[in-house]
């Protein structure tokens, strides 16, 4: 059953030291910024974080890394023009990096959610990211064996929820949210608004309520942008 938290702080209150935290978002799109800030405030440390990137500028995940609260990061693209906090921690040897091709990252998260024990993927075969991994030729093609990535917690940003915990997303902000929601023991979602159950069309729900453990309503720029789009559509 999905709980509704009053604040982001309440939503993340039971994330303990040493947790593996899956964080949605590709760049800023779909990044649960308010939940990450609340996690920073909470003081939880020794975290393993799974995200596509390794934080940007002086916000969210970047600040968690700056404060040395992240022992290890599993991501596909840590190095960006504004990833200075990660760069510094990495060069100082104070954060472990597991670099995973983006599609293998998504598929390993999906495998965790879908109960798959391991899978053979062609991505990365013959590269240094497959070094030491089991490989196999199947029907003339070469594959690398990859294992699921399970999270203790997933922090995601969706667009709308119903009171039951069904979620829909907005545009490319969907990215990792739906797969991470399936891969964690506890999924915490920030959403723009929580609507009465029965409002969302059963055909269009992306994350079903079975995956949503906690949600909190926090309006962000996404609400304004959706309103702008509706206004333009109505012209």
């Amino acid at each position, binding site marked *: 059953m999905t709980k509704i938290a009053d604040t982001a702080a309440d939503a993340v209150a039971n994330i303990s030291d040493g947790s593996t935290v899956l964080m949605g978002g*590709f*760049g*800023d*799109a*779909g990044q649960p910024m308010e939940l990450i800030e609340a996690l920073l405030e909470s003081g939880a440390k020794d975290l393993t974080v799974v995200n*596509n990137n390794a934080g940007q500028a002086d916000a969210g995940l970047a600040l968690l890394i700056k404060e040395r609260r992240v022992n290890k990061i599993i991501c*596909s*693209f*840590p*190095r*960006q023009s504004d990833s200075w906090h*990660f*760069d510094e921690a*990495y*060069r100082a040897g104070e954060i472990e*990096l597991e*670099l*995973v*091709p*983006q*599609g*293998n*990252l*998504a*598929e390993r*998260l*999906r495998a965790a959610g879908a109960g798959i024990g391991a899978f053979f*993927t*062609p*991505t*990365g*075969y*013959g*590269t*240094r*990211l497959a070094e030491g991994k089991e490989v196999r030729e199947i029907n003339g093609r*070469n594959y690398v064996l990859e294992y699921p990535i399970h999270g203790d917690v997933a922090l995601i940003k969706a667009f709308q929820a119903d009171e039951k915990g069904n979620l829909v*997303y*907005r*545009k*490319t*902000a*969907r*990215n*990792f*949210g*739906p*797969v991470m929601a399936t891969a964690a023991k506890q999924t915490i979602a920030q959403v723009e608004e929580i609507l009465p159950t029965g409002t969302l069309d059963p055909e269009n729900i*992306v994350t079903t309520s079975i995956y949503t453990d906690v949600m909190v309503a926090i309006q962000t*720029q*996404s609400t304004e*942008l959706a309103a702008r*789009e509706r206004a333009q559509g109505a012209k």
Partner: protein
Amino acid sequence: MLRSEKVDRNTLAQLVADDIEAGSFVNLGIGQPTLVSNYLTSEHDVTLHTENGMLGMGRAAEESEVDIDLINAGKVPVTETPGAAFFHQADSFAIMRGGHLDVCVLGAFQVSATGDLANWHTGAEDAIPAVGGAMDLAIGAKRVYVMMNLFTRDGDIKLVPEATYPLTGVGCVSRLYTDHGIFELSDSGTVEVLALFGLSFEELSSKSDIHFVDATSK
């Protein structure tokens, strides 16, 4: 095709666009490949995929259109076209890994005669590595096109018998588009030279141990 002068990036992007069949589903990598979109006309009827979760991506957003929830793989705000669709990361990379894209266009540091691609890492041991979707794109599309300059600033040819940079994918490049020529690659390692720009077949052959076959008159 033979031209007496090397071609600029825009001309090359036009040549790539000319080789994309009408109705194709295409992913354009970050950097030089993005230029190809400028030469895809409505006649091409190409549907662009962006690996962060969209088919039917439109042009870059103008300032008044910027939407933080609608970006491409380079994190640049874009627009959507009629018939666009959004999906999550596992579904997006299933499109790539499953071989459903007709063409993807990538940049490269080096390409080998057998189509090995090196485009994610310079090999510098102190560099912070980052790979993103490069390895998925490399092995995913039915045809993988690479755009790059044929020579380094030091004059070394970047189409090599064997790549010295860390690989992105093995035997994955179908065709190489460069300022000095266009090359069709295959598992055999024999490279068909489809076009030369400001470079003779003899000059090319003298730069490399690769076995080139002259197909410029085809």
